[in-house]
C-alpha cells in the first residue's frame, strides 16, 4: 500500500518535472493500459485463466465511447460508464460457455472474440466508420488538455489499482489463487469455482471498457487497425513477465514495456518478435515472473533460518481454537446407506453402509483397492453414488456438489496434500473459512470495513489453529517449503478452519515418523473431544485400533465387518483378507 501511495505521488508530480509533452502522453498511455491490465491481471495472474483476446474488449470500449459521446452527444462520463457496462456484458457472454471448459478453450474463445470485434468494426461502417475510422472526442474541461487528461488517467489507474488490491489481499483473492493452482482444493473448501472465474472475468471486461474509452480519447482517432491482435499479446506479456499473483509486478511490466520501445528504437521494429521472445524466456526460465528473481536474490542475501523444527502440537490451545470457532456440535450423523459405486463395469463399492457420528473417531480399513477412498469421495461429493443414499440432517446429499457439502460442514484432507504452494501457511488455513465469509466480489473490491474486519478475525483464528497443531514456527512460510509432516498437519488445520461437523482424513499418517503419528493421534483425539466426527482412512492398523471408537473393514468393495476395534481386530475374516496372522 505504501509503494502504491509513493507511485501515485510520483505520478502526480510528473507534469511538473517533465516539460516534454511526449513523456506526459506516454505516461497517460501507461495509465490507460493499466486500467485494462489491472482487471486482466485478476483473470490471468490470480484466477489463472488465459484471456488472450482482451484487445477486443478494449476496442468495444473505445468505439462505444466514440459513438455515444462523439456521434450521439451523450455526456462523456456517461459514455464511459456505458462502455464499461457493455464490455462487462460481453465478458459475461464470452465466459458463460467457455469458462467451464479446459483453459485452452477459453483462450481460443477470447482470441476468436478479438477477431470478431475487428470484423464487426470493419463491417458496421455506418456506426464505426469502417476502415476509415472515427474521431474520438476529448473529455470536458479540466480534462481537455494533455496534462488534464493525464490526471484523469492517473485517477482511473489508481481507482482500479485499489479495487484489485482489495480483491487480491482478502478472501476472494485467496479463492482465485486456489482456482489457479489447485481447483480440487478450491472446490473442497467451498469456493464456487465457475462463478468466481466468471465474476472476475466480467470485472476485467468492465475495466477493459473504461480503459478503452480512455485509450480512445487519448488516441483521438481510432480505426480497426488501432486494435491489432498483437496489442492483446502485449497486455498478456506484461502480466506474465511481472509475475502471476502480484499487482506491483504487472504494473512495472506495463510501464517498462510501454516505455522501452520508445527509448530503444530497434526494439520497436522487432515489435512482436521481441514480446514473443520475452514471453518464451520468462516461461522457460522464471515461470513465476521477473519478480521471483528479486525474491530469490533477496533470499540468497539474507538466508533465513529455516532449519527443520519438529512439529509439537499444543493441544489445549488447539481445543480452545476449535471451540472458539465452532457452534454447538450437531447430533446428526453423516451416513451412507447401501451405496453402490460403479465405474463402467467395475463395481468399486457394493452396497456399503456407514454411519459417522459426531464426536466419534471412525476407522476405515481394508486392502488397497477395497474402496476406502471411493467411499470417502462419495461422502465428500467428488463422486456421485450409482445407487443408495448419503444423508446429513435428513438432507439427501448423494447428488450435492462438493461445495454444498463444504457449506454443510463436511471437510476432508487428501492422500497427497493439496496445498497452495505460493501462499503462506497462514493464508492456506484462512482459505478454509471461505464458506463462512462467502465473500462477494463487489463488497471485497470496495474494501468495505465489515469485510476487512472479518478477514482479520478469520486470520487470527487461523493462526490459533496453526499454533494448536504445532506449526507456530512456519506460519509465514510459503507452503511449498514445508516438510511432509508439516503439510499433513497444515491440511488438517485448513479442514478445521472450515468449522466442520465432520472431517474425513485420507491416510493422514502416510509418510509420518512414529513420533509424528503420536502427535497426529493426539490431534485427532482433540478434534473428537470438540464434538467433530472423524473418519480415518488408514493403513497403519495399530494406530487405527488405538485411536478409533469404531472400525469398518472393506474388501473388494464389500463391507466385511464393522464394530468395536477389538472385535474387528480379532475377526477371522478381517485377519484373513487384510491383517494377516
Amino acid at each position, binding site marked *: 500500500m505504501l509503494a502504491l501511495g509513493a507511485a501515485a505521488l510520483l505520478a502526480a508530480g510528473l507534469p511538473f518535472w517533465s516539460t516534454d509533452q511526449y513523456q506526459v502522453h506516454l505516461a497517460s498511455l501507461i495509465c490507460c493500459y493499466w486500467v485494462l491490465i489491472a482487471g486482466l491481471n485478476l483473470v490471468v495472474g490470480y484466477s489463472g485463466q488465459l484471456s488472450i483476446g482482451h484487445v477486443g474488449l478494449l476496442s468495444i470500449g473505445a468505439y462505444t465511447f466514440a459513438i455515444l459521446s462523439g456521434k450521439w452527444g451523450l455526456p462523456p462520463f456517461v459514455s464511459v460508464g456505458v462502455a464499461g457496462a457493455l464490455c462487462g456484458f460481453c465478458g459475461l457472454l464470452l465466459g458463460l460457455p467457455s469458462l467451464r471448459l479446459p483453459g485452452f*478453450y477459453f483462450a*481460443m474463445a477470447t482470441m*476468436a472474440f478479438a477477431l470478431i470485434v475487428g*470484423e464487426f468494426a470493419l463491417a458496421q461502417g455506418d456506426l464505426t466508420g469502417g476502415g476509415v475510422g472515427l474521431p474520438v472526442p476529448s473529455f470536458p474541461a479540466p480534462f481537455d488538455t494533455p496534462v488534464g487528461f493525464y490526471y484523469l488517467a492517473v485517477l482511473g489507474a489508481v481507482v482500479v489499482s485499489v479495487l484489485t488490491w482489495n480483491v487480491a489481499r482478502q478472501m476472494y483473492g485467496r479463492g482465485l489463487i486456489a482456482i489457479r493452482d489447485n481447483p480440487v482444493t478450491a472446490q473442497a473448501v467451498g469456493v464456487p469455482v465457475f462463478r468466481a472465474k466468471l465474476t472476475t472475468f466480467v470485472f476485467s471486461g468492465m475495466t477493459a471498457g473504461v480503459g478503452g474509452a480512455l485509450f480512445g480519447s487519448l488516441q483521438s482517432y481510432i480505426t480497426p487497425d488501432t486494435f491489432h491482435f498483437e496489442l492483446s499479446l502485449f497486455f498478456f506479456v506484461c502480466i506474465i513477465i511481472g509475475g502471476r499473483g502480484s499487482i506491483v509486478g504487472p504494473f512495472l511490466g506495463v510501464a517498462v514495456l510501454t516505455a522501452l520501445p520508445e527509448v530503444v528504437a530497434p526494439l520497436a521494429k522487432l515489435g512482436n518478435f521481441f514480446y*514473443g521472445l520475452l514471453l*518464451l524466456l520468462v516461461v*522457460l526460465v522464471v515461470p513465476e515472473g521477473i519478480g521471483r528473481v528479486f525474491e530469490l536474490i533477496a533470499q540468497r542475501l539474507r538466508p533465513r533460518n529455516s532449519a527443520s523444527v519438529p512439529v509439537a502440537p499444543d493441544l489445549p490451545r488447539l481445543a480452545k481454537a476449535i471451540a472458539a470457532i465452532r457452534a454447538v456440535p450437531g447430533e446428526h450423523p453423516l451416513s451412507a446407506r447401501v451405496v453402490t459405486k460403479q465405474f463402467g463395469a467395475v463395481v468399486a463399492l457394493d452396497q456399503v453402509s456407514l454411519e459417522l457420528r459426531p464426536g466419534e473417531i471412525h476407522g476405515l480399513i481394508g486392502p488397497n483397492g477395497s474402496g476406502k477412498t471411493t467411499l470417502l*469421495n462419495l461422502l465428500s461429493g467428488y463422486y456421485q453414488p450409482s445407487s443408495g443414499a448419503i444423508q446429513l440432517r435428513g438432507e439427501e446429499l448423494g447428488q450435492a456438489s462438493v461445495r454444498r457439502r463444504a457449506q454443510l460442514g463436511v471437510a476432508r484432507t487428501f492422500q497427497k496434500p493439496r496445498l497452495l504452494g505460493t501462499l503462506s501457511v497462514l493464508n492456506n488455513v484462512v482459505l478454509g473459512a471461505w464458506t463462512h465469509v462467502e465473500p462477494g466480489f463487489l463488497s471485497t473490491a470496495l474494501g468495505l470495513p465489515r469485510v476487512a474486519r472479518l478477514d482479520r478475525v478469520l486470520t487470527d483464528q487461523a493462526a490459533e489453529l496453526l499454533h494448536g497443531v504445532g506449526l507456530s514456527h512456519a506460519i509465514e512460510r510459503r507452503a511449498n517449503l514445508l516438510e511432509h509432516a508439516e503439510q499433513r498437519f497444515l491440511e488438517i488445520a485448513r479442514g478445521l478452519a472450515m468449522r466442520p461437523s465432520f472431517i474425513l482424513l485420507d491416510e493422514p499418517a502416510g509418510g509420518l515418523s512414529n513420533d509424528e503419528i503420536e502427535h497426529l493421534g493426539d490431534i485427532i483425539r482433540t478434534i473428537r473431544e470438540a464434538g467433530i466426527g472423524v473418519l480415518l482412512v488408514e493403513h497403519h492398523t495399530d494406530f487405527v485400533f488405538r485411536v478409533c471408537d469404531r472400525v469398518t473393514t472393506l474388501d473388494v468393495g464389500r463391507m466385511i465387518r464393522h464394530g468395536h476395534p477389538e472385535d474387528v481386530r480379532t475377526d477371522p475374516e478381517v485377519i484373513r483378507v487384510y491383517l494377516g496372522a
Partner: protein
Amino acid sequence: MWMVIVSGLAIGALFAATALSYNVMYSTSKVLSVTTGHIAMLGGVFGAYAITALGQPWWLGLIAAIVVGGLFGWLTDVIAIRRVLARSDEHLWLLSTLALATMVQQAVGLWWGTEPKPFPRLIPQDFSAGIADQKFWLPIALAGVMALGLEFFYRRTMYGKLFLAMSEDAFAARARGVSTDRIRVASYVIAGALGGLAGFAAGQLTFAYFALGLTLTLNGFIALAVGGLGSNLGALIGGLTLGLLNTFASYLFGGEYQQTIAVGLLMVVLLVRPEGLLGAQQIRPV
C-alpha cells in the same frame, strides 16, 4: 452454387488438415499447440519461396514445405514443449507455444513481407477451370489422404500403435518400456510434416501469407472442438462443416461476418455438447 460448395469443402479441408495435425500432437503430449496453424503457414510460404523465388520445380517446393514443416514441428517440441511438460503446469505450454507462434509469425512477416503473395500453379491448368480448379481439389484430396493415412498408421503399424498407447495412458506406456519422449518428438515431426504439406496443397487457395497461421490455429481448433478432441473422423467432419458454413454465410450474407459465424458455431457447440460430436466424455478430475 456448386462453386460455393466446392470452395467451402476446400477451405474446410484445410481446417480439417490443421485439426488432424492438432490431433497427432495431442495424442502423445495432451498439448494443443498454438503453433499448429503456423506450421501450415510455413508450408505455404516456403513452398512459394522455393518455386517462385528460387525457380525450383514443384516437387522440390513440396519437399521444402514438408521439411520446413517437420523441422518446425521438431522445434516446437524442443523449445516450447519438452521443458514445459516436465514441469507439469497446465498453463505453461499454452504460453510457450503462443510465444513461439508469435515469434515465427513476426519473423516471417519481416522476411517475406506482410502482403499475401500468390502461390504458383502446380499442375498446368487454365484459370477458367471453375469448380474443377486444382486450388480446390488439391486440399480436399490431401485431407482425405491424410485422414486415411493416419488411420492406416494408427491401426496397422507398430509405431502408430505406440501413439495410441500413449494417448490412452502415457504413464502405462512408459512402464511397458516405451520411450515416450522419442514417440512425442516423432509425433511433432510427423504433425509438422503433415501441416507443411497441407499448407502447400492449399497454397493457391490461401496465398502465401504470414498472418495465415493464427487464423488456421483458431479455425483448426474450432473444427477440432466441434468434431471432438482426439477423433480424426470428427476433425474431418468439423473442418468440412466449418468450411461450408463459412462459404454459405458469405454467399448469403456477404463476407464480412465469416469469423463471427465460425465462432458462433464454436460457442453453440461448447454450450450444447462440450465434448464435441465424436469426442469422449471428460473424466472427473479426482
